[in-house]
């Protein structure tokens, strides 16, 4: 296979006669044999992008190839090379786990005996062999996701689209699924993964693009993105919003990343956690402000968005973004 498993050029997709621009000129290149992450909040256009690449939806304009085939003109060839799992696809609740895999295998036009053997093997691999003959309605959320992924793998596709595969899963199930995805990539599969979770993208994806309002707002390796946004978030809780607002100017020059106040909590992305924390504590103490809590944490998707766009991920529908740089955004709740 060529260097890129998936290439998309300037994809635009509008809904409701052009009123909604779900994708607004997205181009990307997914290198063969890696996990490529599509990161973004709800409504950013991730799922629309996956559906276009999986030939479920056609683009309003722009073009894309998957495994070298055009997603519009050669959709049937594309479908022979892809597997789709996650939000956009599902399993049949009235069939058993085995019957689901068998059905998908047959609809992929694979040999019957092969389908049966492959289904058994996948059920084994994914720890579902005990539940193979149970109706999937009785499966737990984690079991369903594993079966969903198994269904996408029956035809051993070289390219896999995983649309938010771990959203809503408990931590253990997430870890399990991550392990499965890592093993697939070791076996040579190319994975395009959409996620809202930075830790997931960080753990799995070599390269990332960040989508917001249907546009790519950042791309690179996860290390590059992290460098852009600092490595740690310092969160300081005060007794009141007033205290937080008083502390803010004292702390503003500790980082060149934007800071954020939410209620009585002040948050700032910093490059050097411990040293900056010590510095911050000294300044707050000197000003006679009392601190009620303190935490250093990994940056979340919110922080990425705050850094990249000046607005938080939940504001997807657009509160006026506060300018970038040192200016901070105040979100004070009464």
């Amino acid at each position, binding site marked *: 296979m060529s260097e890129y498993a998936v290439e998309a050029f300037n994809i635009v997709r509008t809904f409701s006669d052009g009123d909604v621009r779900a994708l607004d000129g997205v181009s990307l290149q997914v290198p063969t044999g890696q996990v490529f992450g599509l990161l973004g909040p709800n409504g950013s256009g991730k799922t629309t992008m996956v559906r276009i690449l999986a030939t479920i939806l056609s683009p309003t304009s722009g073009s894309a190839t998957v495994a070298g085939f055009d997603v519009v003109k050669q959709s049937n060839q594309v*479908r022979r090379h892809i597997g789709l799992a996650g939000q956009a*696809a599902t399993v049949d609740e009235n069939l058993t786990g085995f019957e689901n895999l068998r059905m998908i295998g047959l*609809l992929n036009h694979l*040999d019957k005996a092969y389908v049966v053997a492959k289904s058994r093997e996948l059920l084994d691999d994914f720890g579902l062999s005990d539940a193979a003959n149970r109706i999937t309605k009785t499966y737990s959320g984690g079991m369903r996701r594993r079966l969903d992924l198994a269904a996408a793998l029956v035809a051993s596709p070289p390219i896999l689209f995983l649309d938010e595969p771990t959203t809503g899963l408990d931590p253990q199930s997430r870890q399990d699924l991550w392990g499965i995805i890592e093993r697939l990539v070791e076996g040579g*599969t190319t994975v395009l993964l959409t996620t809202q979770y930075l830790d997931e993208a960080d753990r799995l994806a070599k390269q990332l693009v960040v989508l917001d309002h249907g546009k790519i707002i950042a791309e690179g390796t996860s290390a590059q993105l992290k460098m852009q946004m600092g490595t740690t978030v310092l969160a300081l809780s005060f007794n009141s919003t007033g205290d937080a607002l008083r502390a803010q100017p004292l702390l503003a020059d500790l980082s060149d990343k934007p800071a954020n106040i939410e209620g009585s909590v002040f948050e700032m992305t910093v490059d050097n956690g411990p040293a900056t924390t010590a510095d911050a504590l000294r300044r707050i103490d000197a000003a006679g402000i009392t601190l009620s809590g303190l935490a250093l944490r990994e940056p979340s998707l919110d922080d990425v968005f705050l850094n990249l766009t000046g607005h938080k991920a939940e504001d997807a529908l657009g509160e006026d973004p506060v300018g970038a740089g040192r200016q901070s955004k105040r979100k004070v709740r009464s």
Partner: protein
Amino acid sequence: MSTLPSPVSTHSSLRWAVSDVLTIARRNLLAIVRIPTALVFMIIQPIMFVILFRYVFGGSIKVPGGYVNYMIPGILVQTMIFGAVGTAIGLAEDLQKGLIERFRALPMARLAVLAGRTISDMFRNVIVLVIITGVGFAVGFRPHGGFIAYIQASLLMLVFAYCFSWGFAFIGLAAPNSEAAQAITFPIIFPLTFASSIFVLVAGMPGWLQPFAIHQPISQTADAVRGLMNGTAHGASTWVALGWAVGAILVLAPLAVNRYRKAA
């Protein structure tokens, strides 16, 4: 992870299309086995109609040849048409749950999801037809048309319902959810089944309603089925009913397929 090669079979595309239709139909039939309550409700409703019209209303309705023999063929036709509501609900549910998304990303025949659904629903109609025929005989239905004519009448009903079920497939794909799909079918089915010759003679209806009630497809089918089963004259109604069925599928199937292409 296994690196077994995945052997793609080398059958012709037509054979694969047939195989896809059967795979989908089988999946739908398994659902009937897994949730038999749906079938039970499909059977209870016509049984209640049989009892209602045989023992409650039937005494006041006078038709030549006796009301039981008039009404049972009508209720059979009505039941077949009501069965098509299941086609709309089934497809709306598949769409709602995301199964159709998965199917659309597979290299399967485009038509198979719809053809598989309408065919499995026809099988379900066969089951219902057999049961309601039995119920009919139990309440005194005695057709005199003979066995062959009975089978012909049954096939006519099944074909008619199958052809019209493509319209219900379209509704299922166009509706926002399965509840809405069911709600949309009601105002279509209600006037067609009740302003018809299914339960009563059209001659008793007001003059303005009669032309519709006589010529609409469900009346024509009911007249043909009744004539065949009872061995009485049914004029051209068999051919008219078949004409309606063929016309319906020629118009409705492309509509439904087109909708399936766009459904998301």
